[in-house]
């Protein structure tokens, strides 16, 4: 594809996260702690028309090779996403997402009576049961990932 046709330009080195469900791109940034404070260029495209999905989001992070532990979080948040590691404009790794054991800080517990929803200084920790179900480490409730809200 010609550079002029690309919504966001190619990156020389870094990580490309593609096929993010439309509208979840910002959640992904939050989950991966990508805030631009390290000075790297971050390109985000939201609601891009896609052949596979109606709409998708794309994130490109220049000069940063995301660790596998980080990208595995996406297996729960955006399971259809793909992660490519780019070096010198070439895809050197198509990373398979595998389920992490835990997801820390990203989701609020859906149980309003859970200690994590109080004023205590406490991070949410979700144990991953499967792709659709998480378990709050504290109140032990089983939670449907699609019904959870991001912090």
């Amino acid at each position, binding site marked *: 594809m010609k550079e002029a046709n690309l919504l966001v330009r190619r990156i020389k080195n870094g990580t490309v996260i593609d096929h993010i469900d439309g509208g979840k791109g910002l959640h992904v940034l939050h989950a991966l702690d990508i805030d631009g404070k390290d000075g790297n260029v971050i390109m985000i495209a939201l609601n891009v028309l896609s052949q596979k999905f109606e709409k998708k989001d794309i994130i490109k992070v220049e000069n940063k090779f995301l660790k596998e532990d980080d990208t595995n979080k996406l297996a729960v948040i955006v399971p259809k996403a793909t992660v490519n590691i780019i070096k010198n404009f070439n895809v050197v790794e198509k990373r398979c997402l595998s389920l992490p054991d835990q997801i820390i800080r990203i989701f609020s517990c859906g*149980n309003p009576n859970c*200690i994590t929803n*109080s004023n205590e200084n406490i991070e949410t920790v979700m144990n991953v049961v499967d792709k659709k179900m998480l378990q709050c480490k504290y*109140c*032990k*409730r*089983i939670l449907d990932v699609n019904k959870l809200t991001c912090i």
Partner: protein
Amino acid sequence: MVNRFFERNLTSVRDLTRADFELLFNVTDKIISHHATYDVCRGKTLGCIFFEPSTRTRLSFESAMLHLGGNTIEISSILSSTQKGESLGDTIKIISLYSDILVLRHPLDGSSKFAAEMSTKPIINGGSGTEEHPTQTIQDLYTMKKEMKKIDGLKIAIVGDLKYGRTVYSLLYGLSNYDVTIYLISPESLKIRTDSIYEIKKKLQILESTRLDDHLDDLDVIYVTRIQKERFQDKEEYFKVKGSYTIDKNVVKKMKRKSIILHPLPRLDEIPHNVDRSIHAKYFKQAEYGKYTRAALLGLIINNGFVNDISS
């Protein structure tokens, strides 16, 4: 014998295996049969932190600690710095400096798990929100074993408020270690929260019903629970289900000859006082066992040698 409880927290029944229960039951048997107090906790202090009302749990823990030669200190939300806005985390950190072991009752689910992370000393969950009440389950199962001579094979009905009753969830997790049949009897609006028994649903044989009468002649244990008025957001909803199940003399007449009635107490109108003299009524015995099962737990957590001391 290995003491698996030494210096461990007890925040959830999920952490207990069948072998753990059996060890607790054996030690409890010894404590009761020796008719003696012990010195295994001499010089040790139990910190009781109760942010919700309690009679049996608090006093049985205190009594158990005294039985083992230890001391207790107590803090309640009314008299503590939480009234000034101090967090639970800070409160736990402070009390753990003054105690060797802590028992916490708190209205929020997951509070004891959090407290265990904040504390430098072992934490026992004395009731956390609508989540769990592990030490109640130890005494419930001990009572079943003692009064029915077994747990495997029992047909057990849990009746009443299955949605908000924390003892229910701990009991189900405890029973998942045994081969039992469970009847969950409740009004439609107070059915069990399936998201809280997800891990054990397949392990347990469960039958759900709104009618207790249909099963009375089949049951070995009727575990009655109070409708938890204080946990209803809408008080009208409470009055709709209040008094749904009353284990009165007419019900008792239909029970199997050797079946028993248990209740974690306090009771309201679900068991009339004239049932107390029935041979089936074991809820006061159950409350009494609470002191000894808690003594077994405290002794095992505090003193590694307790398991051997008590066997000799």
